[in-house]
């Protein structure tokens, strides 16, 4: 009677219900690996005590890499010895998260041999997360993965694994090849991914259109958001088809257009393309009738991040429109220019967005050699505190640079 039927009554509650249960997953892993059952029991304890049992991470990793492994130890190693070490490895996902079952099985096999058999498919940055690895197993896991074509991602003050929406592979709206760009940047910056040398982390994210299906604008130090410059392509018959099928074009499209640049008279849809702000809404509602134009590229934005410490930022426009063509050299030059400046003048743990805010966008642009354009601001300054940079001296009536 003292012995209960289950050791994890609280977690068992989470096996119920229609949504896939992570508890079932841990139990599946526990069938063959004691790390799984230790994890289950420790988690049950957390559920009882309402507190986690992980210690502040230590520095662990694989040889020659400065990141990609998150060290983790529990604070009750005697009671949960199999997960005394329980590090995660961040493994670069393939662009667009496409897999062959062969490749996936290979990863599983390796992870079965070396780790807990538990994964996250995927982590928030986009990596394959191999959850629960002993320190000794890190290097062998890595090398086996590497032999099979997989590499480790970032952590700490480095470039994190870039990620992208599936783009042109399956989406008709993608204004550039997101997967190609993501792969290309990932390969170009291998060194920066693996050997942290920045003031803080740096994330690249690539979305094919303003719908932004990888949330690039919210969580990338540099965000590439596909867009177009010419007219929205329209299939007039398909418009009528939508109307016939009951779409209330006036209410659901015209009135929701943020630029108020669409007119609909019941027969014809008219878009003032010079006023369109490329929000995608009309296209989203009528995918068969409307498509982005053909002069496509990306709007490039900079600096988004989570709130620590200046508050959260969204990325802001730095290049209103760029033709995204390999090898993207101009962009890479700009990225490197920004890195140089940020490495030189950024404070420790200061994201590029915070750095720009501290030094001022105007000064930042000047330093990286980008011309200011009105597209970079929601609106010009409201306060009169302008740092005019030059003034005349009485003596010479010549314009002088104030020394900086």
């Amino acid at each position, binding site marked *: 009677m003292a012995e209960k039927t289950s050791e994890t009554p609280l977690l068992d509650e989470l096996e119920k219900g229609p949504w896939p249960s992570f508890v079932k997953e841990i139990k599946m892993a526990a069938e063959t690996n004691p790390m799984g059952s230790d994890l289950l029991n420790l988690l049950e304890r957390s559920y009882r005590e309402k507190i986690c049992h992980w210690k502040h991470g230590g520095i662990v990793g694989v040889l020659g890499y400065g990141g990609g492994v998150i060290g983790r130890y529990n604070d009750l190693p005697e009671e949960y010895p199999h997960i005394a070490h329980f590090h995660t490895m961040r493994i670069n996902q393939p662009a667009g998260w496409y897999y062959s079952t062969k490749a996936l099985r290979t990863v599983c096999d390796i992870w079965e041999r070396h780790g807990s058999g538990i994964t996250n498919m995927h982590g928030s940055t986009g990596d394959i997360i191999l959850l629960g690895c002993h320190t000794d197993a890190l290097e062998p896991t890595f090398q086996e993965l590497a032999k099979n074509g997989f590499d480790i991602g970032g952590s700490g003050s480095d470039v994190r694994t870039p990620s992208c929406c599936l783009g042109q592979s399956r989406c008709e709206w993608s204004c550039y090849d997101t997967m190609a760009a993501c792969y290309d940047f990932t390969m170009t910056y291998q060194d920066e991914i693996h050997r942290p040398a920045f003031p803080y982390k740096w994330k690249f994210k690539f979305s094919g259109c*303003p719908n*932004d299906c990888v949330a690039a*604008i919210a969580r990338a130090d540099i965000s590439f*958001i596909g*867009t*177009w*410059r010419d007219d929205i392509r329209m299939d007039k018959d398909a418009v009528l088809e939508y109307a016939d099928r009951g779409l209330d074009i006036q209410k659901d499209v015209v009135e929701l257009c*943020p*630029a*108020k640049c669409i007119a609909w008279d019941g027969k014809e849809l008219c878009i003032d393309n*010079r*006023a*369109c*702000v*490329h*929000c995608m809404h009309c296209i989203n509602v009528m995918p068969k009738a409307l498509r982005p134009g053909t002069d496509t590229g990306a*709007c490039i*934005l900079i600096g988004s991040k989570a709130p620590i410490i*200046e508050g959260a*930022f*969204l*990325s*802001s*426009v730095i290049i*209103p*429109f760029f033709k995204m063509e390999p090898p993207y050299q101009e962009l890479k030059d700009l990225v490197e220019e920004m890195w140089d400046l940020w490495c030189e003048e950024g404070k420790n743990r200061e994201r590029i*967005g915070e750095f*720009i*805010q501290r030094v*001022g*966008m*105007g*000064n930042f*642009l*000047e330093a990286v050699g980008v011309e*200011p*354009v*009105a*597209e*970079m*601001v*929601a*609106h*010009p*300054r*409201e*306060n*009169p*505190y*302008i*740092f*005019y940079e030059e*003034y*005349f*001296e*009485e003596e010479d*009536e010549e314009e002088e640079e*104030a*020394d*900086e």
Partner: protein
Amino acid sequence: MAIDLKDRITDIGPPHYEQFLPPVIKENYGKWKYHEILKPGVLMHVSETGDKVYTIRAGGSRLMSIKKIRMICDLADKYCGGHLRFTSRHNIEFMTTDESKIDEIIEALAELGHPVGGMGKSITSIVHTQGWIHCHSAATDASGIVKAVMDAIFEHYANMDLPAKCRIALACCLNMCGAVHCSDIAILGVHRRPPIIDHKNLRKVCEIPNVSASCPTAAIRPATVEGVASVEIIEEMCMFCANCYTVCPALPLNNALNDGVSLWVGGKVSNARQEPMFSKLAVPYIENEPPRWPTVVNSIVNIIDVWRKDARNYERIGEWINRIGWPNFFKKTGIPFQKEHIDDFKHAGLTYKRSAHLTY
């Protein structure tokens, strides 16, 4: 001078307004029903009682001699039963219940040099400040630019030919006396050279710790200069706010070579349609060009013309720009966009364009 304390009167406050109200206003106080603008500068208010009052609004120069005030009183005595009022924008209003007198009043005002207008979809008087007439802080004159600008856009004062109201204001320094910061068009005097420190006198006229503390960017530090206690200013940290000068006369920012004017657009105060908005920087700097500031005048005429042609009905300048976007404002007006337009004060980050909503 000996002051007789016995009979001295203090703390009486202003005269009670009631004694100044024209009879029709007093009788219909709180009973007004609707109004109509009969023609530029002429308003008719109709009361629940059926009474009507006609208001003729004349442009004021704000700076007035007592001679002129007396002439205006003569006019009010003749036509308005000895009553008149001023508006919140320095205009002068004459009220009558006799519709037939309207044109006579307008003529009499014309003779005095005071045109009628500034109502409805028009430009009314420019709210402004002292300038070189009276203030020690002025980076430009006030009355002079105002006169030059009003002359140039007079047609929009005298006619209701604009998409919406357009409120212009001028302040001669960053203290911004007036509601300059929320005007459709604001003219703002700016200094561009850090204070030239009067080291010899500073210590005598100011307290050094106060002076240092007054600088919002911490550009001012105590320092010994040529043997006397004074301050030094890190020039590239100075944003010319003049807060130090307000606190200490030994730090003048006024400078003939560098002072001038900046232009701001798109603010509004009323809650009508869009919420009140601040004005935003349009032209960072124009040098002082007395007596008629042609560059300022032309820039303003240009902005008004572009807005007038491009805006929809009832769209004030800021509302129009909100629809077309700032990049189009700069494109259409031909004003170059520069580093200075990008905010770099405390909330700068919130003014960056944090979306892909762009026009091409």
